[in-house]
């Protein structure tokens, strides 16, 4: 727990540094006529201060020996990566393939990644989902979802 919180703290600290860096590139102005960069600059500095305080506090706690040991469940990073990849691909081809096709392909791949073995269930399930979504969003709600090359 402690170590992971600390990683988070460091990431947030870096976020603060990046914000401060880019804010300084913008006009700061005065308080009478605050410039574009003034408010983000204040926030960036505030974030650096807060995260530093937090990290110091964590460090002190660790010294006191309050370390909490958490049980790590065996995780499946590969499954997560495949899942993320399928989502990213779907978004990438959202306009080109068109909504109904993307919906179908996304369902098939996600179900497969999560370990649905039989194509006999995966294909009809995905097909029905895509059709229902198509009628719900495109036909009934008239949302201009991309048609793509199948032209639906």
């Amino acid at each position, binding site marked *: *727990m402690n170590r*992971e*919180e600390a*990683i*988070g*703290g460091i990431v*947030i600290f870096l*976020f*603060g540094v990046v914000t401060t860096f*880019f804010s300084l590139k*913008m*006009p700061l102005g*005065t*308080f*009478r*006529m*605050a*410039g*574009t960069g003034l*408010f*983000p600059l204040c*926030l*960036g500095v*505030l*974030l650096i201060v*807060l995260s530093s305080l*937090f990290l110091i506090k964590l460090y002190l706690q660790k010294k006191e020996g309050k370390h909490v040991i958490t049980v790590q*469940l*065996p*995780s*499946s*990073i590969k*499954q*997560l990566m495949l*899942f*993320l990849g399928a*989502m990213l691909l779907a*978004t990438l081809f*959202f*306009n080109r393939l068109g*909504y109904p096709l993307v*919906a179908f392909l*996304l*369902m098939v791949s*996600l*179900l497969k990644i*999560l*370990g*649905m073995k039989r194509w006999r269930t995966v294909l009809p*399930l995905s097909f029905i*989902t895509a059709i229902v*979504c198509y009628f*719900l*969003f495109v036909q009934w*709600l*008239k*949302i*201009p*979802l*991309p048609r793509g090359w199948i032209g639906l």
Partner: protein
Amino acid sequence: MFESLQHLMTGFGIATTIHNLLYCLTGAIVGTLIGVLPGIGPIAGIALLIPATFGLNPTSAIIMLAGIYYGAMYGGSTTSILLNVPGETASVITCIDGYQMAQKGRAGPALATCAIGSFIAGTIGIFGLVFIAPPLAEAALAFGPPEYFSLMVFGFIVLSNVTGISLIKSLMMAVVGLIIGTIGLDPVTGDARFTFGSIYLLGGIEFVAVAIGLFGIGEVLINVEKPADLLEQRVLIPRLRELYPTLRDLKRSIGPILRGAGIGFGVGLVPGPAPVIATYSSYMIERKISKNPEEFGKGAIEGVAGPESANNSACQSAFIPLFVLGIPFAPPTAILLGALLIHGVSPGPLMISQHPELFWGVIASMYIGNFILLILNLPFVPLFANILRTPKKILLPLIILFCITGMFTVNNSVFDIWMMLLFGGVGFLMRKWAYEGAPLLLALVLGPKLEVAFRQSLMISHGDFGVFVNRPISMAFLLATAIFLIFPAIRLMFKKSKKGGI
């Protein structure tokens, strides 16, 4: 007062004609459906159906559109509870305990409590609307930029630690939210900020993308990362007699419902992000006064009942500034204003006297609509709760598809889907590293308003900071914030000295 009552009776007469009842019912049903779908919130729902009302008379049109508005608010909590997907700002808080309740097999009571709480809060809201609202609406005008700034600071500091885990961590997340909120066009000078040349970032980061990403997608990813055999499991299946709240649940909820209704009504009158402040405040208060605050975040029914009621009554009172001042304080009411205009009704100080049938008819229909929603929603509870019977390995892909589709519908933009996925990744990491999403979302909503109010105040005062403390309302909020920050420190010192004494 008696006169108002008489008008209200006339209003009921108008609202209970068969065709107006039908429009009310249609609006409520369509609204509920739209609310259940992630992404399409009340705003898009109303906008989609405005053209369909061109042929109706104004009263019927507004009755139907208002029905969509509060129907969507009802429906919005459903996805929060079942899938941890908040469709709009108001249902972020409901995710915290509602989703935990559902995970423990208590989705039914959570959904039913929402419906009952919303109905009670709606009833209170209507009476407030009729009797005490008009003078209060004028009072809201006392809020100028300095008052806003102080209110936002108060809300920001006090509410950011809404879940009560760690103040410093919550504040960190809140500041991150504020920074994300600065992306886009500078509201005061019109210059681009943190957009890195992308035109899509000019309008800022879409709130719904962050909310669905952090909560919904993040949760799905956490589940996917678990070993494959865990996915075979289902959520605890609710038994039939557990589908509705027990007497004990109701007893626990009634206090939060009433308090939530009061808070929501008050906050709704103030211009600004009322649903957010109302739901966060209600949750905060319930957690503070609860006898078992450790249950919050793990499925406390009070954490669902209070905020949902607060949200509903804030929605009701949001109609007051619209009708009395002709000024919409929230985006959904802005859409309704547009609909009113297209029907030849200009809301404003003259509306109640010029279009009494519309004003009182709509108010009465709101009450009837709330009742319709209650009887419409309670039978749906088992149906929705049974969605969780679906095995996770089927449910998770469905959630993803719904989120992607819903996200697109908000702005018809693929870029928003990218943003949602990005924040899904962030949400996943936050969950792993034990950080909270709620403060970030609060800050994302309040941040831009906070900054604008701050800069406006100083522009008006020519750079004099005295403007924040010379005005009584603003001063009061700042004092309250200071007390909130100092109080725990004093208590801590007190505790330490006590220990030292022993």
